[in-house]
């Protein structure tokens, strides 16, 4: 008994110590915890934002902590919430939107900032960004780092093959890649990025105005069902499989960075996030450029959709801490900060104002590829297929999709079989989510 008792006492003492520490700092500045998933250079940028914010005023201290990658952050925050040790702010990827929205654990950001009387021009947000994170017309979380895929290419390879640049449609683009290969200009036409399910499948579906699921991709109800096994996505997967089989597209695999396949000049093109600007500029040993994502012949190109993450506010904290939260979030949304963030990271500015500022400065004259993302996001008129994705348990359904696509590349399944299986698995997961959250959406 002695041992156990001693531990209990020790535990109680430790708790008491934590409580005291909390009080001590509360007398000076209110502390706001912010968990994020930005490592490496991006992590340093986040630290800089926080440092600037803390220096800009004297009432609040934001403490930023990198809790690993996106998956680790959402899992970490869930565990912390269950143990009642969660932060006020957490950065969650776009895939976690529905999970967070219906969790019962969050404070909608627009409500909070309105309540705290922070003037934010919500209508000025870039459309696909706003539409992704809105629910019933209100923004649920604060957009932070938003990106979209663009097509990176090796200028010299295209010139040698006699092209001025990548073609607009998939059909012509495919021919270009095969020409480059048959002429022996490069070892491989394109490197398959790790988030290809996002750039080459989901965004393909959106850009070509294909429904990914029923009910406007989940916007109109939890009873949404995936339908991408009946759309042009099947053709896209068939095309990708053909490329991989013919060696036109290379899967990098473990321990090899697909981006390096592109920046080293081995592969001629690369479909990846605009946020890769930072590393491509640093690493590239080639003359590179970028352009819009291709679209299907005979279909007008629509907007692409975003990736990245937003900052969510969690329930269960003190009012003065939420004052700090509101202060920090409006700091993040300010045009100055957005312009700076856009420039140093390659993420898109989240407000049109920030975009105009950068444009007026002549930033895009020197850096034309930096403008592609925002132009692409604003391309065409939004339809119910192109607003974004509101699927529950979206990480889990995406995992099923990825696993099935791997079976296609492994020649275990045909594209149709794999997509049928993926849709079946995905719908099963959606039904679970619907059952659990019935009446909440």
């Amino acid at each position, binding site marked *: 008994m002695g041992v156990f008792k001693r*531990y*209990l006492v020790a*535990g109680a003492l430790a*708790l008491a110590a934590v409580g005291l520490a909390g009080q001590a700092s509360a007398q000076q500045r209110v502390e706001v915890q912010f968990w994020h998933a930005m490592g490496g250079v991006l992590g340093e940028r986040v630290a800089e934002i926080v440092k600037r914010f803390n220096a800009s005023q004297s009432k609040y201290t934001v403490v930023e902590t990198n*809790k*690993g990658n996106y998956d*680790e952050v959402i899992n*970490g925050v869930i*565990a912390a919430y*269950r*143990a*009642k*040790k969660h932060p006020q702010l957490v950065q969650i990827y776009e895939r976690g939107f529905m999970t967070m929205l219906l969790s019962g654990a969050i404070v909608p950001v627009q409500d909070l900032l309105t309540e705290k009387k922070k003037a934010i021009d919500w209508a000025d947000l870039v459309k696909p960004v706003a539409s992704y994170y809105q629910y019933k017309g209100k923004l649920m979380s604060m957009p932070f780092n938003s990106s979209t895929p663009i097509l990176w290419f090796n200028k010299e390879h295209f010139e040698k093959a006699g092209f001025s640049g990548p073609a607009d449609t998939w059909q012509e683009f495919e021919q270009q890649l095969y020409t480059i290969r048959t002429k022996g200009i490069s070892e491989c036409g394109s490197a398959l990025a*790790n988030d290809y399910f996002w750039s080459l499948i989901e965004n393909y579906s959106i850009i070509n105005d294909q429904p990914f699921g029923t009910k406007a991709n989940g916007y109109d109800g939890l009873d949404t069902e995936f339908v991408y096994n009946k759309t042009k996505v099947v053709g896209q997967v068939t095309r990708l499989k053909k490329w991989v089989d013919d060696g036109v597209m290379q899967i*990098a*695999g*473990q*321990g*090899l*960075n*697909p*981006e*390096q396949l592109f920046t080293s000049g081995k592969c001629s093109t690369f479909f990846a996030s605009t946020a890769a600007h930072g590393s491509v500029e640093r690493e590239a040993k080639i003359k590179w450029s970028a352009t819009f994502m291709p679209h299907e012949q005979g279909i007008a190109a629509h907007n692409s959709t975003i990736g990245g993450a937003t900052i969510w506010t969690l329930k269960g904290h003190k009012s003065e801490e939420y004052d700090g939260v509101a202060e920090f979030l409006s700091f993040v949304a300010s045009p100055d900060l957005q312009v700076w963030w856009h420039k140093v990271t390659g993420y898109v500015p989240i407000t049109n104002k920030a975009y105009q500022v950068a444009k007026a400065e002549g930033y895009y004259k020197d850096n034309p590829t930096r403008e592609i993302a925002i132009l692409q996001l604003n391309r065409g008129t939004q339809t119910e297929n192109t607003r974004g994705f509101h699927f529950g348990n979206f990480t889990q359904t995406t995992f099923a999709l990825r696993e099935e696509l791997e079976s296609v590349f492994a020649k275990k399944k045909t594209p149709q079989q794999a997509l049928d299986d993926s849709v079946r698995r995905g719908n099963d997961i959606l039904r679970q989510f619907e059952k659990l959250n019935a009446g909440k959406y």
Partner: protein
Amino acid sequence: MVERARTLDIACHALLILGGLLVCLPIYFAFVVGSHTVSDVLTIPPPWLPGRHFFDNTVTAWQKGNLGRLFLNSLIVAVGITVGKIAVSLLSAFAIAYFRFPWRMTAFWLIFASLMLPVEVRILPTYEAVANVALPLQWLLDALDVGRWFGVEITLDWNMMNSYGGLILPLIASATATFLFRQFFLTVPDELCEAARIDGASPMRFFWSVLLPLSRANMVALGIILFLYGWNQYLWPLLFTTDKSMATAVIGLKNLIPQSDSEPAWNIAMNAALLVMLPPVIVVMALQRWLVKGLVDSGK
């Protein structure tokens, strides 16, 4: 042997040499790669002979992986598990072998039943248990509605995540070790206990001055196995340390393996792999005889 059969002997040697090569091959290549620069590693064909950058890579791996801190963690955890397990099992085995009391068989079967619940099958609830060890007590309080008696809400909270306690304590129960010591106690001559009693020694006195010294060999043998077990833990520290500075060396190593979106720094990863396996390898090489004894005994 009984007769000489030259061909068979040669075949046996050949087999053993082949086996030895198979064992050493991956380790040899870890050494080769660990001694080259990244660009050398990426050349085709890959290098077959060691390069000259082994110590540079060691320094890089050590800093990049924060291995100094993680080695200390691993050492504390491995020693903690070893000592804890041996102590707890010795006491249990002594109780079961030397005392007649009600519930004796129940205790025996409870310990035995734990064999059926490897950590892998109770991952999630164990996670909850570590996140708040006082949870069961809380349920008890809630069920009895103790809070209302005092008019306050009582919340018990004892989080063992990211602590040495959390990494060690849940792992120190051991049916195998308990059975091993019990087994051994059963072979100790009864006369020793009787003599101790005649001398007026208390049970604990007998335990300390007679049983413990006799068990030394078993403790060393088991200690080696448990040290390796503790050092090589994977799933447990993976789940219960979210703070990177509380991870163990093995987890630190895992984070150095090149993933598909990072630099292919295999040289650093393999160098670190050699470093992390070094302490247990030394233990195995130096204390081989004990290890074999311990394994064979605990398998009984």
